[in-house]
């Protein structure tokens, strides 16, 4: 589904002494089927922006369009339930979306709510569990008696069970172990491609942004600061440093290498293996 933000501002506790503008006149367009990363320093407005995508909040000013659904301050959102069956959000803290007595009930809650048949729900659960790295025995447990990373996996499973068209992920790998981080991101990417999803990912991992996204939006203090191709936007160290961010680690290294050796290796999303070979050539070549 296409997503458009047009002059969107969002103010928390409007008309009170505590009013706080979290989004300030933001516009952008996300084409259906793309994978977009949203990046920004602490408190820049990322989670607030995501909450517009399934109508958890309405813009204070401006308009948000998701497919055929329109959200604006003066209109009541029509078909909100239908919108929520199409847009699945994995929240920043998994505890915020777990509430049932057992893991199984928790994962089944979404699809049940949207009228999916019991047998279909069961088959979805069987399919999703291994994809999020949870053993079957976990189904009977309480979601609150799990480790942080296990809760995260249950929360993700619950969103996938609805089979949304738009996948909205707010730092979905925070709390996962290194293998889990990679497996779960690969799994999202696979779903994204196979099912033609539109994916919006908030992440602090510049590496993941360059690896998976085809478009990136940088937020700064509620404003859109930059937007474009990940490898271009995320290699602009000067611009990123200005808003308290940094380039991916490989680019940091390439810059340090250039400073030390006076030799430039361009960043082209190469593998570490490729980089090692490039360095070897340069260092050997410089000698003869």
């Amino acid at each position, binding site marked *: 589904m296409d997503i458009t933000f047009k002059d969107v501002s969002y103010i*928390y506790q409007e008309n009170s002494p505590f009013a706080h503008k979290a989004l300030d006149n933001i516009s952008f367009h996300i084409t259906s089927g793309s994978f977009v990363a949203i990046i920004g320093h*602490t408190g820049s407005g990322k989670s607030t922006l995501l909450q517009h995508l399934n109508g958890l909040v309405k813009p204070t000013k401006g308009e948000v369009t998701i497919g055929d659904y329109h959200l604006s301050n003066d209109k009541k959102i029509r078909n909100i339930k239908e919108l929520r069956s199409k847009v699945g959000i994995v929240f920043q803290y998994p*505890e915020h979306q777990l509430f049932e007595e057992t893991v199984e009930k928790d994962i089944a809650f979404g699809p049940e709510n949207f009228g999916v048949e019991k047998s279909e729900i069961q088959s979805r659960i069987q399919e999703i569990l291994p994809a999020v790295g949870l053993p079957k025995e976990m189904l009977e447990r309480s979601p609150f008696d799990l480790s942080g990373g296990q809760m995260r996996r249950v929360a993700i499973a619950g969103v996938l069970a609805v089979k949304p068209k738009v996948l909205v992920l*707010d730092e979905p790998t*925070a709390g996962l172990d*290194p293998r889990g981080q990679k497996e779960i991101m690969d799994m999202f990417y696979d779903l994204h491609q196979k099912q033609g999803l539109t994916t919006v990912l908030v992440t602090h991992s510049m590496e993941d942004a360059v690896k998976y996204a085809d478009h990136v939006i940088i937020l700064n203090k509620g404003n859109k600061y930059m937007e474009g191709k990940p490898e271009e936007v995320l290699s602009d160290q000067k611009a990123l440093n200005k808003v308290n961010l940094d380039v991916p680690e490989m680019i940091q290294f390439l810059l340090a290498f250039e400073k030390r050796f006076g030799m430039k290796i361009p960043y082209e999303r190469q593998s570490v293996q490729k980089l090692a*070979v490039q360095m070897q050539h340069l*260092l050997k070549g410089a*000698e003869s």
Partner: protein
Amino acid sequence: MRRKIIEFREVSFRYEDEGPWVLKNCSFEIYENEWVAIIGHNGSGKSTIAKLMNGLLFPQEGEIYINGEQVNQESIWDIRKEVGMVFQNPDNQFVGTTVQDDVAFGMENRGFPREVMVKQIEDSLQAVGMHAYRQTEPHRLSGGQKQRVAIASVLAIAPKVLILDEATAMLDPKGRTEIMNTVSKVQENKKLSLITITHDLREVVQAERVIVMNAGVIWDEATPREIFTKKDELRKIGLDVPFVAILADELVQAGIAIHDEPLNHEELLEDLWTLHSKM
């Protein structure tokens, strides 16, 4: 010899009487003025260890000593004054109605004099970049802001034992580095024992020692440099090694004889420079 601050003696723990053992026969020691990182796959027992350290849980087998005193029902009130902890989800620990009340709470409990409290609130909130939010209700903060405030609250107390359970998971890498530098300064100045539980491999590198957990068992305990030489084994138990270690490995494969396991960019570049000038 450094003073022993934490000791786990053959500790085993399970959450339910007939349930599976979550920690099995774990023994280790942590010293004064030491930074130890605990890493391990999801569910390996890291947070459980943290909760045993401040008496939120008690082991069924074995003993735990903090600063020479055994952790049990009688000693927990004393021990909790010495052990400060930031939980994996900061929502679980906010008590104040405003950010500054929250930072004040731990100090009030420990009987800090008023002038000290006022100064510590200022300093610690400045240090984590949250001073502008001192009047805000904690539940109205962003995910990363909550983590920053939770860290300010323990920094203000500077307890003898400081445990951070994935306390910077919601920060960007730059913010994470800044906060960890701040924490590390307090640790050194006050000679605290700092225990960081983390999945961030770059953060692990900064610790003096690493305890690696695997399925409730201590799998290894060594310096980061030693740990990160075991790339394949670490990957088998759900972990990984930092970018520099991977690059160093690939350089060796490509025929460049890196000798020591580098831990950061500077070390690797230095090593390359030495090799290069000899080529």
